[in-house]
């Protein structure tokens, strides 16, 4: 048996209220008012496709170091690097055993994630475990329909042949050069075509074709489908497609249009993870990924689903973990949608110094500290000499993963002088329960409750963005639990 073994997701905490987008832009396009319902998840300045992918994997499989899947596949159309394998950054941030790990970035289509999942299932069919993470940090032009509809988020689906909670019954892929929208090389934004044409010639024809082929192959009746996942930014499309196919209305997955926004290539996995939270043994789950054709996958939920939830918050937990954001300017600023005066303090040398980065990547990518084998003292960063004055041993430290450690704020400040995309900059001394301490940046601070003594966990975040060079550096930040 091959299928899904675990699922998880991540949504940024910031939830931009769509009304503020409409309020700012309705003078230009009154039609935006009709889309101004609910909110959408948006990345903080220090989140991107990679950081959300790390979070989603951890939500799926926990934060234990040394996990050894055979493959980590990352699906996205908004990868920070066009030539530096993004999935490798994710793998190192997760502190996976990379000694025999296949990594791959899958991109260039809204069905990248379903295609990636099919590849992952092929790996599972060979008796190995694989994880597909889909993550998207979407950009849209000011005052566009897309700006109202797009959201940011990520999801992870683990597959294998043991402890399967949803068995793959059948799959079908069709390739059609149907261009509902595209984003050409060097372009920041999508260029789309009329929604009615996309609906009638695209979703209403291509998806049913693929689904019918699949159902016929699997000898399954559409009416028996318990969960139908079809991500689209056209809210009415999934029920229309379901009706055309004969799928029950209640099987149609909520597109989360008004709570998350459409998270691009990640959305299909986000919706799948959401439905799996509610699924029971025997349910048939039909997943469709639309984009230049269609991937459809049919799963049957097994008895192993009982009590199975994401290792972390899951989609539901993340949905309820949002913080309303009403500052449209902040959203535009975080997404580089306007030319903003950042001040002279932002004009620091952002050079990558790749050789130094490579040496430091145990700390910066994986948050590895050192543990002294002579006295067990944990220290950050790892050092030639033990920091314990009673020990001071030379060359005794072994890598010690700290990314899952819980910490306490010992000292802190909210700094308005230093440059930060989201001032004030919070930083201070974090001490860890298992030993070790480090002066580090913090993020997502709730100024009302944050103080010395606050409990924090560690999260992989952006440290610095060099827009000129197209480079970005990552490190870990403390976030209040």
């Amino acid at each position, binding site marked *: 048996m091959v299928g899904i073994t675990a699922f998880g997701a991540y949504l940024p905490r910031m939830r931009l209220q769509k009304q503020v987008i409409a309020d700012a832009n309705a003078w230009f396009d009154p039609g935006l008012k009709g889309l101004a319902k609910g909110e959408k998840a948006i990345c903080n300045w220090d989140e991107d496709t990679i950081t959300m992918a790390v979070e989603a994997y951890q939500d799926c499989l926990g934060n234990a170091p040394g996990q050894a899947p055979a493959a980590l596949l990352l699906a996205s159309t908004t990868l920070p690097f066009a030539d530096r394998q993004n999935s490798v950054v994710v793998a190192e941030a997760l502190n996976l055993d990379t000694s025999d790990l296949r990594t791959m970035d899958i991109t260039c289509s809204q069905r990248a994630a379903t295609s990636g999942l099919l590849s992952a299932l092929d790996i599972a069919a060979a008796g190995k475990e694989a994880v597909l993470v889909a993550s998207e940090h979407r950009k849209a032009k000011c005052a566009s329909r897309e700006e109202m509809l797009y959201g940011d988020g990520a999801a992870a689906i683990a597959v294998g042949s043991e402890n399967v909670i949803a068995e793959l019954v059948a799959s079908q892929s069709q390739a059609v050069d149907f261009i509902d929208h595209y984003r050409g090389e060097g372009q920041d934004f999508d260029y789309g075509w009329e929604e009615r044409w996309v609906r009638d010639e695209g979703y209403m024809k291509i998806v049913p074709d693929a689904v019918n082929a699949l159902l016929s192959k699997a000898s399954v009746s559409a009416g028996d489908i318990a969960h139908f996942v079809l991500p689209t930014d056209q809210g009415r499309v999934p029920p229309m497609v379901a009706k055309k196919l004969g799928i029950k209305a209640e099987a149609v997955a909520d597109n989360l249009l008004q709570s998350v926004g459409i998270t691009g290539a990640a959305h299909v996995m986000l919706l799948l993870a959401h439905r799996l939270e509610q699924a029971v043994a025997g349910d048939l789950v039909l997943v469709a990924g639309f984009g230049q054709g269609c991937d459809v996958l049919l799963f049957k939920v097994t008895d192993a689903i009982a009590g199975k939830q994401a290792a972390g918050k899951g989609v539901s937990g993340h949905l309820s973990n949002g913080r309303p954001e009403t500052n449209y300017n902040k959203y535009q600023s975080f997404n580089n949608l306007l030319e903003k005066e950042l001040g002279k303090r932002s004009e620091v040398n952002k050079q990558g110094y790749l050789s130094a980065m490579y040496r430091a990547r145990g700390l910066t990518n994986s948050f590895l500290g050192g543990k002294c084998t002579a006295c067990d003292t944990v220290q950050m960063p790892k050092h030639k000499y033990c920091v314990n004055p009673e020990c001071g041993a030379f060359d005794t430290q072994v890598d010690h993963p700290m990314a899952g450690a819980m910490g306490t704020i010992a*000292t802190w400040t909210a700094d308005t002088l230093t440059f930060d995309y989201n001032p004030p900059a919070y930083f201070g001394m974090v001490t860890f329960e298992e030993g070790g*301490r480090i002066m580090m940046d913090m993020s997502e601070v709730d100024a009302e409750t944050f103080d010395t003594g606050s409990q924090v966990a560690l999260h992989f975040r952006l440290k610095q963005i060099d827009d000129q060079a197209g480079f970005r550096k990552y490190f870990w930040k403390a976030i209040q639990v």
Partner: protein
Amino acid sequence: MASGIKDKVVILGAGCSKFGERWDCEPADLMAEAFEECIADAGIEKSQIEAAWQSTGIDAYSVGPGAMPLSMGLRLPNIPVTKIENYCASGTEAFRAATYAVASGACDIALAVGFEKLKDTGYGGLPQRSRGVANDLYYPNLSAPGMFAQLAAGYRGKYGTSKEDLKRAMAHVSVKSHANGLKNPKAHLQRAISMEQVLNAPMIAAPIGLFDCCGVSDGAACAIVTTPEIAKSLGKDRLIAVKALQLCASNGQEGGYEGWDGSYVHTTRVAAKRAYEEAGITKPREQVSMTEVHDCFSVTEMVTMEDLFLSEDGGAVKDVLDGVFDADGKIPCQIDGGLKCFGHPIGATGLRMLYEMYLQLSGKAGERQLPNPTIGLTHNLGGFPHQNISSVAIIGEYGI
């Protein structure tokens, strides 16, 4: 066991430029201004100086690397000149090097000059700078006030001091220093401020507000040192001697091991203990006449009073508010206005402090002269509360 530096070297002369936004001055102009005062005070010729040390903190913004800026700036006669950088202790380090050179007998008369041109950055505050390419990958996104604000959080965490009480004590530190600076024509900032102004000022790095920060200035200061014997032979009768020069550098324990709670600066305590021992001071609160400490931020000065053992642990808030360190208090602190009013041209600061102590001990401090001081202590703190360089220098009347 080493006998220490006490009374082996005296200050022959000292000088200090006007500190401030010296838009019209090159670094060479600043150092010349300080040096002309210094050499006139010393009563020697330039040719009698046998070695010199230059302290600059951020050379990229002022003069570039190496010690040629000093040698060329003063047209020194091809003597050995060495550049010293050791964070905010750089000025005191140049003085330490010159003092040690004389004490060793390697030369009879040595010069220490510190200067910094900070106002060519185009913005307020200290310049943003790299901490090294690898460190920059994980050090927090910091400013100097942000790092020293950590002390406030640590102090509150340890002693349970309310935010309001701490902020009032911090404010008192600044109000006191401004009152002192008002009497100093060389200070950058020469105006009185009120508690209300400090408490209501814009926040820079919580809880450090605008008036909790020292100024940012251009400036230079210098000292010429020699042996007591040579000073006497040159006709000096009231000798101001070096009593102690101690430096302590963090080794990573505060920031990397258990114990340190952010409420104090470990290195200052180590340096102070050693300095008191070297100077033969057993009761600092009774024996130290006055201090110039590294008040980069008001909270730093407050905590330093405990680190120098001038206040009991946890007692600085009360002592500060009781006026112990005011001009008319038991141990005046920053009688010249401190970093608060002089700003912090990094390389110059330590020497500027020593200049004031020298003036006070020589009875030359004019309107701000304290009555009969005998021992003056200066303190610098460079880096961050959790990893830093601390220096403590003690000077006083020769032979006491």
